[in-house]
């Protein structure tokens, strides 16, 4: 069972990278996100007139997972439909969750790598100082953030069964994450409704927790981390519930798409 899970995860990964040379794949997974991090940090340094970019490096390093978790996972069912496997997945009596999770394993690993590289590049280019930071807790925060973002990606992926405009949805969501997670500017700047939306988004609490690690006193680290995990778990449960609904609807109507 476990071996099948990892075999399946590796096959998904192989399918995704088959068209690219190794250096192209690495550039796409790591190089391009790092250029994006540098871009937003440069805007912040100019617009906020500051040389202390720690908060933006943290926020954007977490957002680097967008590429893998949101676009990678969000397109799962679009990909399955494209390759003609959707029928087998919906109709087979096996559990769907391990299949979906297997699809997300490698994107989540790349997301962690991208985030770690983001912090390293941030330290190198923008002089972020890690000297007083507990690296174990920092690693734990990254792991929790990526797990939460991956759950959010899974939740979004189910909407691939309900509409044919996933590119549009995923791109809008990636911008909403930049606006509402506090990665590019403090959440306190948003109007009250915006601040409430921010608390429902993944990564908001993880970014705040990481900021608390760098500058103790900005909030309770463990409380923020638990809240981030709870957000991720809520999205995972929502994904399971919406997928179950889509699956039942597909069996009843005899159609694999709800649009």
């Amino acid at each position, binding site marked *: 069972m476990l071996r099948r899970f990892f075999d399946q995860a590796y096959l998904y990964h192989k399918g995704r990278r088959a068209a690219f040379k190794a250096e192209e794949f690495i550039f796409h997974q790591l190089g391009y996100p790092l250029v994006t991090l540098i871009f937003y940090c440069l805007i912040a340094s100019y617009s*906020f007139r500051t040389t202390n970019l720690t908060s933006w490096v943290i926020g954007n390093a977490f957002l680097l997972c967008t590429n893998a978790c949101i676009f990678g996972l969000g397109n799962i069912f679009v990909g399955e439909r494209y390759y003609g496997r959707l029928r087998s997945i919906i109709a087979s009596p096996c559990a769907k969750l391990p299949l979906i999770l297997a699809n997300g394993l490698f994107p989540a690993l790349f997301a962690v790598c991208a985030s770690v590289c983001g912090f390293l590049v941030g330290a190198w280019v923008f002089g972020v100082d890690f000297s007083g930071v507990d690296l174990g807790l920092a690693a734990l925060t990254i792991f929790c953030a990526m797990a939460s973002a991956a759950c959010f990606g899974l939740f979004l992926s189910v909407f691939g069964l309900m509409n044919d405009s996933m590119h549009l949805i995923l791109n809008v969501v990636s911008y909403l994450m930049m606006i509402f997670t506090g990665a590019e500017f403090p959440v306190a700047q948003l109007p009250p409704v915006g601040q409430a939306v921010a608390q429902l988004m993944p990564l908001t609490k993880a970014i705040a927790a990481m900021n608390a690690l760098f500058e103790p006193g900005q909030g309770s680290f463990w409380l923020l981390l638990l809240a981030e995990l709870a957000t991720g778990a809520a999205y995972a449960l929502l994904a399971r519930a919406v997928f179950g609904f889509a699956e039942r609807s597909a069996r009843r109507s005899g159609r694999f798409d709800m649009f």
Partner: protein
Amino acid sequence: MSLAVLLATMRVQMKQSFARPMFRFCLIANPILNTVLLYEMYRGSGEESFMAYVVLGAGLMGLWSCICFSSAGDINRERYSGTLALIFVAPASFPTIILGKIIGNTLLSLLTLGISLVTAAVLFRTPLMLESPLYFLFALLAAVAAFVVISSVVACLLTLSRKTELYMNCIEIPIILLCGFVFPVSVLPAAVRAVSYALSPTYAVELLRMSVWGVEEPAAFWQKLGILLGLTALYAVLSALLYRRIDRRVRVAATLEVA
């Protein structure tokens, strides 16, 4: 070059582009979301004329996204649809058809500037004041010409690869960063600035910004305009050479497919 073919291609291209969800995202959602994001990042900057960075920046980012995800991939899209061979051997010349597509896309993409202007006026009640409208008109016309020609070069280069989607994604943010769409290029390190000044959009952005703030030194404006037109002419020659090379390669290999 037939004007009727050019106009007909422009019309068809505008309809086809607007039908695609990704183009609609780049055209409508992208400038709105970028305006909100940049406004929140810039509003505490203390700079009085920051709306030029917000509105022009968001509009130009949307324009460039439209170019990246449409003009740059149009030849590949024709290949995917199986119509590349038909338009290649049609009595109307192939470059005319491609130019019509690119001009159609670029003109439609100019809507992003209007959308970001309206977004700023409606959401933030801070309209953009245009200090030198006549200079702005010159700058806009030169910018459109520059974007059409650079799109043509990029479209040619991407024709030679089957990994167009990867490269389309990878040229978006680096050009926005290098050409200073949302901050002055003086923020960049000197070595990077040398690359910026070899790219025609850098001058287009600077000219647009100068005309929004008010042209105080007309000589500087005309000098930049001259450089922009010179670079645009240079890119046009490069594009023509590339088309000729591709044409020769296609005739020798007797195929429009890529290796």
